[in-house]
């Protein structure tokens, strides 16, 4: 009987499933026995209770008498906020550094190479702790704050940047959304009739009109220095600034290499063909190379974006309360470790699944459909 391949494979699977199930039962049994022995209650009801934990900074409003679930949401919002900013900054910088790395100018390519090698070969957590230790060494006290750009101040207490607040009415917003949906769908229907060149300006025009209809005003509040403190503007703490700068430096190194690989993957023939059409270097890059490059770099770029979300957990090293740090505090405070662990695992898997399925969808759209 064992020599029959089919029977044997079924037998192997049954044994495997049984072993896994037995192992799981054993784990659950010991876990509950351990929990009972220590008198720890199990269940998710604790989420609605007031948390009384301290979250040092948050982009959502948080008070320590808020319930646990809100503390978790606040931590998650911090993680998403941090990851989004790092992704945006390092994508822009990575594109620049990756292109500059291929420049014939030795000064530009050399400097960028040093950046890439340093970023790729140092552990991000060491980079973050190093930058954090620099903070008080390099930057002046708040009274002598540096002012590198108009409206941006840097001092020991962190960065102060202009605060941009959006001012809008619900009615205006609804009209604008309705207008946008209508306009975009009619453009979508008409896209085969009008020339492709007109499509982008038409879309842009629609957005401008919608913004005008919605009467959205961006109020910029410039920070001013008043003797001992700043008033107005947004303050970024040293912790948030360190992890933003550190992760951006780190991720830029990887994205630059992806961009460089992407540009090199577009054959020389494409450049020659562009030159023979009389296009300038910039136009070849923009019209011929970058569209082809996007296809190549999208999958690795997406895994870098997922890495940013994962690396945002390093915020714990400098004391910025990201999702994992908040969960860690909650677990040690409430001793609901099992539930906490399930929430941690679920949230990160969900975040990464969302990111990768969005990227897969976009990837399918731009990939070449072969006959």
């Amino acid at each position, binding site marked *: 009987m064992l020599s029959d391949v089919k029977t044997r*494979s079924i037998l*192997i*699977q049954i044994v*495997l*499933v049984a072993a*896994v199930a037995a192992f799981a039962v054993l*784990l659950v049994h*010991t*876990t509950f026995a*351990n*929990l009972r022995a220590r008198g720890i209650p199990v269940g998710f009801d604790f989420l609605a209770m007031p948390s009384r934990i301290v979250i040092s900074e948050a982009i959502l409003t948080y008070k320590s008498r808020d319930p646990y679930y809100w503390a978790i949401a606040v931590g998650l919002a911090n993680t998403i906020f941090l990851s989004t900013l790092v992704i945006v900054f390092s994508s822009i910088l990575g594109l620049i550094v990756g292109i*500059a790395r291929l*420049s*014939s*100018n*030795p*000064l*530009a390519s050399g*400097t960028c190479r040093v950046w890439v*090698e*340093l970023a*790729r*070969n*140092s*552990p*991000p*957590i*060491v*980079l973050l*702790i*190093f930058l954090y*230790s*620099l903070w008080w*060494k390099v930057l002046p006290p708040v009274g002598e704050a540096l002012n590198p750009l108009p409206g941006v101040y840097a001092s020991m207490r962190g960065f102060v940047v202009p605060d941009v607040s959006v001012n809008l009415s619900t009615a205006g917003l609804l009209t604008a959304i309705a207008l946008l949906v209508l306009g975009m769908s009619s453009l979508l229907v008409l896209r085969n009739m009008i020339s492709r060149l007109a499509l982008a300006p038409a879309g842009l025009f629609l957005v401008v009109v919608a913004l005008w209809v919605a009467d959205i005003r961006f109020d910029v509040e410039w920070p001013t220095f008043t003797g001992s403190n700043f008033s107005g503007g947004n303050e970024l703490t040293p912790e948030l600034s360190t992890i933003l700068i550190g992760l951006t430096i780190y991720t830029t190194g990887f994205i630059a290499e992806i961009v460089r690989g992407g540009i090199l993957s577009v054959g020389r023939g494409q450049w020659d063909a562009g030159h023979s059409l009389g296009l300038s270097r910039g136009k070849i890059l923009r019209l011929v190379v970058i569209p082809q490059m996007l296809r190549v770099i999208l999958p690795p770029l997406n895994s870098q974006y*997922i890495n940013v*979300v*994962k*690396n945002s*957990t*390093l915020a*714990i*090293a400098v004391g910025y309360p990201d999702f*994992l740090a908040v969960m*860690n505090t909650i*677990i040690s405070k409430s001793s609901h*470790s*099992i539930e*906490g*662990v399930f929430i*941690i*695992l679920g949230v*990160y*898997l969900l975040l*990464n*699944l969302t990111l990768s399925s969005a990227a897969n969808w976009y990837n399918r759209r731009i990939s070449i459909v072969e006959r």
Partner: protein
Amino acid sequence: MKALSLPMPAEALPRRVRFTALLRLGKLLFGTPLNGLLTVLFGAMLVVTVPPMLRWLIIDAVLFDPDPDACREAVGACWSFVYAKSGQLLFGIYPLAERWRPAIVCLVILALLGWSVRPASWTARLLALWIATLAFIVWLMGGGFGLAEVPTASWGGLPVTLILTVVAIGIAFPVGILLALARRSTMPAVRIGAVVLIESVRGLPLLSILFVASIMMPLFLPEALLPDKFVRALVALTIFAAAYLAEVIRGGLQAISKGQYEAAAALGLPFWPMQYLIILPQAIRVVIPALANTVIVMIKNTSLVLVVGLFDLISSGKAALADPEWPSPAAETFLFIGAIFFALSFSFARFADFLERRGPVSH
């Protein structure tokens, strides 16, 4: 070369050559308006940043002066702290009298890593050598059989980083092979199990896996079986490495042509001998550059164990900084630690580049 063939007086030659080289450099720096702009931009940036950095790093720095007050007065970096504390930075809280043991362990691991880098030494003998070395290392660090016993709680610094990297990868490699084979299995239960395991580990930050390992293991296991912190971190790192290695090896398996399987089947080889003799040797050779990259990722990742309370390089740096006799030169200390990690990972990266350029080994 062209300049050399021109008929000209011998003493004029070097200047001419130097001139063309200068001209070429000039063209690269200022040949086009864009290049000129880039040169000015990057040049200005370097002029602004490099001199103050050099002044801090070397010119104004205190290098070897063992007196802490010299550092208090200096404006530059305090390297004498790193120099004076190098033992503590490298070996953590390992007993002072026994520090020769972790020192030998580090040298042995690095020497063996260097030896394993040579393509000529990739044989079954190397595997045996590694297993023997690991046993030797564990004995040397932990003691017993004639040496004073040192619990893992006192292990620290560079040996912890190296041991965690090497042992985690060492255990993860066979597990990764099994997972890769399972993921390509025709048996649905086996395949689904492998996919779920690999993808969920790859979807999680290592830090969360480390946390889960250190929080959950005391709950999962009966108290008698509970491993110490070191082993818990090692288990988490191993699971993490196995999932990543499995995907790398799966890439290699996919590169093997169907003919190889058919030929092996035609010889009447059963599953395991087929994998062991025909498929795996070829598949692993194809992915050696990718494996080297995974090793780099793991070297960098071991620095995370500090958050679960292990005494790696970063924690021993922090402990050294707590000495009240010295001004605490944190930036210098972490620069030193960063340099160690950089040296390890950069040299491994160059090795991976060399493998990639050489292309897959023909067979």
